[in-house]
């Protein structure tokens, strides 16, 4: 019963934070509330027997998205006056949303309480997948095509963001954080390596590890470190695309190793090599994710002296 109470409070908190984030007058408040919401969400997921997802949500959903939003706020040079919406502007969408919500909830209540039969199939396939953790098996073996495309999406987001990136003046670094971050960096790398390794058998994996690495890199980067970490550097480009590239090349090599129609054996890892392949693919995916996220959050190392913004039109 107390568990149900906990659940109820958690759910109410989630709803309240989300609503507050949407309704708060100040954008900065909204972002903070959103981050809090993300952390609560992670808690809820941990409660629902999804600790690996909770980790990912905390790192990606709350942490990264929050960081991105804050950096967007910082770039928001014009202070928008808090917009006041008139009643009809609020009412009609609310009516529409309530109607739609009613429909969706009515349907959701019909969901069967039993889990998918796929769980059994997954378990059966686990032995040949090369890893013992079922989520990793799904991600990098059973449905690796999704994962490959997802890495492409991540790369694309980077390309798109780079393409439109405005040039910004570097934030002045903070000496305390500078010294801290130097200490932080090796620890972050160690931790990320562990997460990656753990992914094969326990909660963890490329995404969490990558996100963690990225977080470390971002901290360093905000303190003017890692200036070599730039898209114009060929090796950085190579490492960033390596997530996808190694994945594809490994898959192509695997085709050569397996007899049969190329379409049929595409992405099929030979069982005895599967563990190694998955670790290889994951390793590069981690590096690529870390680099991509770093560049996404921290942007290019600022070219000094570029006077932009208001002064430009003179």
């Amino acid at each position, binding site marked *: 019963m107390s568990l149900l109470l906990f659940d109820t409070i958690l759910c109410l908190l989630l709803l309240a934070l989300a609503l507050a984030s949407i309704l708060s007058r100040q954008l900065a408040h909204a972002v903070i509330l959103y981050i809090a919401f993300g952390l609560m969400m992670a808690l809820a997921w941990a409660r629902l027997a999804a600790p690996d997802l909770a980790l990912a949500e905390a790192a990606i959903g709350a942490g990264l998205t929050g960081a991105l939003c804050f950096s967007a706020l910082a770039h928001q040079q014009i202070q928008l006056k808090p917009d006041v919406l008139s009643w009809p502007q609020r009412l009609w969408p609310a009516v529409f949303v309530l109607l739609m919500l009613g*429909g*969706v909830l*009515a*349907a*959701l209540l*019909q*969901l*069967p309480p039993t*889990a*998918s*039969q*796929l769980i059994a*199939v*997954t378990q059966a*396939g686990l032995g040949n997948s090369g890893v013992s953790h079922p989520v990793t098996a799904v991600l990098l*073996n*059973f*449905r*690796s*095509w*999704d994962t490959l*495309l*997802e890495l*492409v*999406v991540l790369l*694309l*987001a980077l*390309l*798109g963001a780079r*393409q*439109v990136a405005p040039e910004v003046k570097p934030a002045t670094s903070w000496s305390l954080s500078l010294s801290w971050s130097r200490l932080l960096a090796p620890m972050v790398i160690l931790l990320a390596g562990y997460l990656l390794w753990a992914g094969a058998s326990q909660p963890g994996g490329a995404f969490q590890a990558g996100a963690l690495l990225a977080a470390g890199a971002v901290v360093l980067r905000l303190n003017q470190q890692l200036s070599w970490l730039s898209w114009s550097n*060929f090796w950085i*480009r*190579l490492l960033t*695309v390596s997530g*996808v*590239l190694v994945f*594809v090349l490994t*898959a*192509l090599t695997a*085709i050569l190793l397996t007899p049969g129609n*190329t*379409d*049929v*054996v*595409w*992405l*099929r*890892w030979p069982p005895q090599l599967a563990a190694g392949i998955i670790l290889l693919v994951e390793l590069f995916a981690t590096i690529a994710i870390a680099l991509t996220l770093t560049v996404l959050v921290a942007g290019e190392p600022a070219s000094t002296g570029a006077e932009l913004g208001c002064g430009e039109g003179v």
Partner: protein
Amino acid sequence: MMVVLLVLPLLSALFMLLWPRIAPLLALLTASVCSLVALQLLLLVSQQGSQQVLLAGWPSGLAISLEANSLSSLLILLTALLQLLVGLYAFATHRRDKLGAGFWPLSGMLQLGLTALWLSRDLFNLYVCLELLGIVAVALVSLSGDKAIKPALNYLLLSLFGSLCYLLGVAILYGAYGVLDITVLASQWQADLLSSTALLLMTLGLMLKAALWPLHGWLPAAHAAAPAPVSALLSALVVKGPLFILCLLWLQLAGATQVAAVAPWFAGCGLAALLLGGVSALRTPFAKNMVAYSTVAQLGYAMLALGLLLRFNQPLFAAALWLFVLAHALAKATCFLAVGEITATLGGKRISTLKGASQTMPLAMFAFAVAGGSLIGLPPSGGFLAKWALLQGLWLQGGQLFWLLVIVLATLLSAAYVFRAVVLAFNRADPVAPDFAPRILPQWLALLPALAVWAMALYSEPLLQLLKQEGL
């Protein structure tokens, strides 16, 4: 072969990122090879029937399934050919139009996303494809620089929202049936509240992404703001992706009662798109917006055909639906390239820029008019074939006079907006002087798809057979 079609664009896009200098060369090479392979795949499929693959050899349900049927392979071929053509056009004009180096890898990714989408038969994989397409499309639009940022952002947000609606539907379906494979799902399908809600959510999301009326508001601004080759790709191919999934859902999954309930709505939306899109195209003062609104209107034909197909289950409507998609893809590629070429050379973006273009840029104007002929549906163009199939279907269903009237009106509207531009081009009084000497090669490239769409008459019979039996 599917692997080649998927991996080649991806690998070449990666290499383009690493070595930007050879990007155009690589892009053209890839597109040519892919065209050949796609042709081979089409031949294979037409001889041996559809090719199904459970990826990585895992059992059905666990694995992602791909299927190359005749429709998919036709669309893959179309994608590869248009990529090749647009690549050539972009190569010929990229210096003048300041198309950034970003175009090449993005166009490779676009090809990957589209090919993956045409092949996929897995609900979640389709979601990833959709997101890939959406992001790559927005990135391509934003190549235009400052003027395109706002429409691009709007496009991205709505596209994300559409994807999320779709994803919610997928989640509900998985919650109900525990599978993602469309074929498996179809065998377990029950027409109840749960599946209806999921279908409606997915339909909402897909209609938003495909810019189907009334959720088309983002399209004209985004397509008009993009660089000409990008607009051509977006209008010709990208909006067809979600449409394809929509058809997949309603034709393969939905139960009879669900279909019966939704069919009139689809047809009605198609009707509204045809008429209102046509009117908007007629009224807008900007050339590229006119072409973009024409896309909204033409997608109405596809919607109408889908609605009628669901209502009457007449194979002719399936043929009409896909013929519209094919013909529109080719015609619209020409329209955007031709209009882009004209506005770039004559310097202006209003329709009045076209004044006298039949003298200053006769070839591009001719290309536009020829493509316009297909949009109107004049014989023997692809647009005519599609309309013919639609009319035949309607007459065979006992003369649906109301819909016939709609088609007549829509045809006249499309004629009105096409010829509004053409008549202006024949104005000899004071033609707009070109900013620089018109170039011949891009104009010829713009003409090519229009010629292809008019030549559709020559291979219409096999095409009709192919699409009628397929219909998804």
